[in-house]
């Protein structure tokens, strides 16, 4: 059983700040983390390995410092880590990213067949949920997105059954290996890495693959060249002109404030007045 997990290093975007004057992003000093959704993918792959044995390979495409994310995954128990990095990959949109990752996975698979490719549901910076399906299409393997649970794994029959979140319910699907699975948040909880694990991971080898060594056959499909989407403009959301109209609350009893709130809302919007019912007689 061999799983590949695609993890991305992302800025901890809660802490991204926009420069108040120039309106540009201040990236300096923003800490990076493994995309939180990808941790569910790592954990699920490790659980499969715990259960049936085998191996977990983690792959990340990104700048050289994405190595940190891979080491972290190694500390949780991944066996092999590959950093796919090259200037030629910079500026890739989701179509180009999925091409590069799929090429690298195909190269891994040529050495050691891959049964499941795990991805996160989405990233918190790109936020597209497109790279997983993109990888599945390019490798021409079955695509199972928003998976909440692996129900059954039959290695002899090479079959898997999963619960997939769908609109208004859960689909139970069965398919054949190899397949690509994107894991839903909350589907499991990432294990702790002990100090020993971390030391081991710090010494472990992270393979670094460039444009010439990552299995990419057609460089025009990578980076800016391979990206049909182009960002024309980045801007800050427009603030609303007027601020909230404040309902007087100082030195007033809650019941009094509540009564004036209903009055204000009903006066502002007749449709709401109808929802609330008739206004009580004044002074009631």
């Amino acid at each position, binding site marked *: 059983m061999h799983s590949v997990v695609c993890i991305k290093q992302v800025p901890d975007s809660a802490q991204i700040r926009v420069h108040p004057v120039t309106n540009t992003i201040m990236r300096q000093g923003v800490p990076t983390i493994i995309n939180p959704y990808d941790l569910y993918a790592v954990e699920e792959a490790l659980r499969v390995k715990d259960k049936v044995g085998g191996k977990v390979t983690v792959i990340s495409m990104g700048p050289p410092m994405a190595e940190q994310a891979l080491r972290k995954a190694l500390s949780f128990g991944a066996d092999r880590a590959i950093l796919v990095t090259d200037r030629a990959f910079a500026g890739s949109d989701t179509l180009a990213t999925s091409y590069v990752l799929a090429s690298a996975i195909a190269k891994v698979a040529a050495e050691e067949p891959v049964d499941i490719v795990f991805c996160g549901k989405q990233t918190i910076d790109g936020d597209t949920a497109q790279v997983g399906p993109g990888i599945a299409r*390019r490798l021409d393997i079955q695509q199972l997105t928003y998976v909440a649970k692996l129900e059954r794994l039959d290695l002899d029959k090479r079959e898997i059954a999963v619960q997939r979140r769908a609109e208004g319910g859960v689909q139970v699907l069965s398919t054949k290996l190899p397949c690509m699975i994107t894991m839903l948040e909350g589907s499991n909880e990432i294990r702790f890495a002990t100090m020993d694990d971390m030391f081991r991971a710090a010494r472990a080898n992270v393979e670094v693959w460039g444009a010439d060594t990552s299995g990419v056959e057609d460089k025009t499909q990578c980076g800016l060249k391979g990206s049909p989407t182009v960002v024309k403009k980045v801007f800050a959301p427009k603030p609303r002109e007027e601020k909230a109209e404040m309902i007087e609350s100082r030195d007033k009893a809650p019941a009094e404030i509540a009564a004036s709130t209903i009055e204000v809302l009903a006066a502002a919007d007749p449709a709401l007045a109808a929802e609330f019912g008739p206004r009580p007689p004044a002074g009631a």
Partner: protein
Amino acid sequence: MSDAKPARRAPKGKTTELPEHLKAYKGVWVFIELERGRVHPVSWELMGEAGKLAEALNVEVGAVLIGPADGSVEAAAQEAFTYGADVAYLVKDPILTHYRTEPYTKALTDVVNAYKPEIMLLGATTLGRDLAGSVATTLKTGLTADCTGLAIDLESKTLASTRPTFGGTLLCTIHTVNARPQMSTVRPRVMSMPEAEPGRTGRIVEHPLDLMESAIITKVLDFIPDRDQNQAQLAYADIVVAGGRGLGGPENYRLVQELAEALGAEYGGSRPLVQKGWITADRQIGQTGKTIRPKLYIACGISGAIQHRVGVEGADRILAINSDPNAPIFDFAHHGIVGDALTLLPALTQAFRQQRSVDRLAS
């Protein structure tokens, strides 16, 4: 690396002139999401947008309907006409009874390749995102996820898709160059619901699926409907009451539920409440939760972070209760009360209950 994406510009030397063979792509299409006989309302919301885009381009609006051969596809097509479709492309086959990536991808890519739309819109639902990612990769075209604004760039006549970036702190506008169709997904409730025009009709074009069940590897074993059907209702509720970290503790969330009950409203909360386990994930409101467009939104003890704001800005009216007069929520709420949510919530519940009973006495 999609994180590099928002920062980059059209590269120099990259021609934005559309290759000759792609100029034949005409028309604005919406994928009509049909599951278990029901059209997801996001599809009609998108029809409203498609109408505006098509008008700017002076082209037709197309609706694509994929589903079983039980009449549901035809019924939905008639409805699509009332929402502005000029032509409906139908692919119907028993294989398409339940959503599966493989046959739906084939159906949609086949009609796109046959009839060549320049723009293709899908709802950013679990189904829409699964399908859009698969189809865009198959067609090797650009796909922009979770757009909050769609417009035609008048100079280039291309689709300008605006979406939040960097965790919602900024917006960016994305174009698809050198590839067609230009694909975008939009989350439910981001666009407003258009008026239907009863009696309006259009042309129907049927396209075969040309696939055997035995050739499809993934099988649907079961479908377990959600017990809590309110999941979907939060996005479509007329009144929503929500709580945030300002409530102090899980035991106080009940105050939000009680006010919601008095108003016949739905309830939800900010993300920290989901992380703390006070409420379930399907009740999270905001960028990574539900987008809502109620007539009235009451936010209690919520600071109004940008990620929360983008999910509620479509509300007709926002009432915020916060003990901090400088809380950012007062920058976009219509009405504000500076005060303690823990005492104001019961008072509001009481007042609304009274209102209702006056109503009953009067009738």
